[in-house]
């Protein structure tokens, strides 16, 4: 029992170390891939932190992602980099608290579309502010950060996020989230302070997402609302987490990695029929893996062991 736990931690640590050395054996393209994967693994895991157990499907991902990226764009010239990240996290936190407080009464699809509207509202406000107050729209980020630096930061963030997800899953607050996801009336009658729990988790998840945006931004040199507030990011995050299984620790990761590689493979090989093939594959996945990738792998695993 205990030996097994030690082994699991050991393996996790070894994998992490191996991943950290990836830049030395992967070319620039490989690093680019790893950045994308680490980014989406973090996004999906952070998203599932809140949305998985509570079933509050959020489309506000890109709002925080964009806030992170924009903060870097605005502050990168005037503050040292670590402080910029800190500032991004702080702004993300404040926005998350405001958003969290305002969405407490919403449920189901109303919450989903509310968060979408919110992301769009933030994008519109940023645009309006830039246009009317600063008089520019695009901003340039000339930070001296190579792809390796971005990769290492994302890898670290991904590891921390998974660790947090693991810890929350075993902790009281994890149970509170599940209870809230099942029935809020019961949750309240059990003594759970629903608002506080929801807010805390939403904020945590949002801060991580903000950091992903902040860390990735220097890769694009040029940042504008249409680029960093692209709703596709929200949708992909959601789809990856759902596909992997948003209720399990490894679910989002197992959704993000294969899906990302699939996207990559398709766009590398079928630039002209990408959409059609992707769409068909997607539909096929929904039909073949009704309970998500993780449930499927678990089933295979069990079957394998039963033999």
């Amino acid at each position, binding site marked *: 029992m205990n030996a097994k736990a030690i082994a699991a931690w050991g393996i996790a640590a070894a994998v992490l170390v191996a991943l950290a050395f990836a830049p030395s054996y992967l070319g620039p393209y490989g690093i680019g891939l790893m950045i994308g994967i680490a980014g989406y693994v973090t996004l999906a895991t952070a998203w599932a932190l809140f949305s998985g157990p509570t079933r509050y499907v959020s489309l506000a991902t890109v709002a925080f992602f964009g806030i992170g990226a924009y903060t870097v764009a605005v502050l990168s010239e005037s503050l040292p980099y670590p402080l910029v990240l800190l500032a991004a996290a702080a702004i993300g936190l404040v926005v998350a608290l405001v958003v969290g407080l305002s969405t407490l009464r919403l449920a189901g699809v109303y919450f989903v579309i509310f968060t979408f509207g919110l992301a769009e509202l933030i994008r519109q406000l940023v645009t309006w502010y830039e246009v009317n107050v600063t008089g520019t729209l695009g901003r340039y980020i000339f930070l001296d950060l190579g792809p390796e630096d971005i990769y290492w930061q994302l890898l670290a963030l991904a590891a921390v996020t998974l660790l947090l997800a693991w810890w929350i899953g075993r902790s009281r607050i994890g149970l509170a989230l599940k209870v809230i996801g099942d029935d809020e009336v019961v949750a309240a009658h059990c003594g759970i302070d629903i608002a506080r729990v929801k807010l805390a988790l939403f904020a945590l998840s949002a801060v991580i997402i903000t950091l992903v945006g902040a860390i990735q931004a220097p890769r694009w040199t040029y940042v504008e609302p249409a680029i960093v507030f692209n709703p596709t990011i929200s949708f992909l995050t959601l789809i990856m987490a759902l596909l992997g299984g948003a209720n399990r620790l490894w679910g989002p990761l197992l959704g993000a990695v294969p899906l990302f590689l699939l996207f990559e493979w398709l766009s590398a090989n079928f630039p002209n029929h990408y959409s059609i093939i992707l769409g068909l594959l997607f539909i096929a996945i929904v039909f073949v893996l*009704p309970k998500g990738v993780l449930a499927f792998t678990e089933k295979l695993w069990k079957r394998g062991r039963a033999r």
Partner: protein
Amino acid sequence: MIVTAILAGLVLGGTYALIAMGLTLQYGIARIMNLAYGDMIITAAFLAFALYSGAGINPLIGLAIAAPAGFILGYAVYALMMHPLVARAKDRVSLETDSILATFGLLFVIQGVLFVIFGGNYTSYSYLNVPVTILGTNIAANRLLAFVLAVVIGGLLYLALTRTRWGTALRAVAVSPSSAALVGIDVDRQARFAFALGGALAACGGVVISMYQTFTAASGVVFTMKALIVVIMGGVGNVLGALSAGLILGLVETFVATYLDPGLTLAATYLIFLVILLWRPSGLFGRSAR
């Protein structure tokens, strides 16, 4: 000025309401969150465009072709793709998840096909772009058509859904499919019909919009999201809600553009949407029960 603003706002809102009608049926009644909805609209728009510029067929006749085609497409999509998902869903949440994932795939397929056939270019033509003077204000006939269609379809649907047994049965399917079967309602058939009807309405919207709005194969998502906002703001499954929400958004947009700052129109529409949801968490006409 104010009359002009009101008229312009109502007419713009008519477009929003028109595109939302079908979605509120598909999501509100057939319980399918159809992310490919906007792409169905765009498909119809391309169809109208192809008929008009390729075969010289008047878009009004195009409407008569596209609506049944949309119905058939919706019917087929439900029967082939959605029915198995509905049948295996153990509760509403899992059906929602599955339908989001599946229609997300469908969205890519439709978009991909449109890209292959029509390319990525901006497509636009103009039809019925003639002024109609109402209360001294010139309004484009094509936009007026959208408004009139929205009001007529919305009104008819509302009456059908609330005043007839058939419509009540459709709503019953939305409220509780398992109980609906217990009173003799063929849930699958009703849902399929509602979804197909939603497809027909999407097609109508697409044809009318193509007369005055530029579109590309990628524009579907924009329409889906706009329609979703209207549907949610009105209350899921509520046709009158969709109609009023659409008109409100149109009015807000026009008034902000006229009296405040055109740069804030979208911000204002999202803001009003958010405020309405905060005030009524289940939309304007939604019932508070989950």
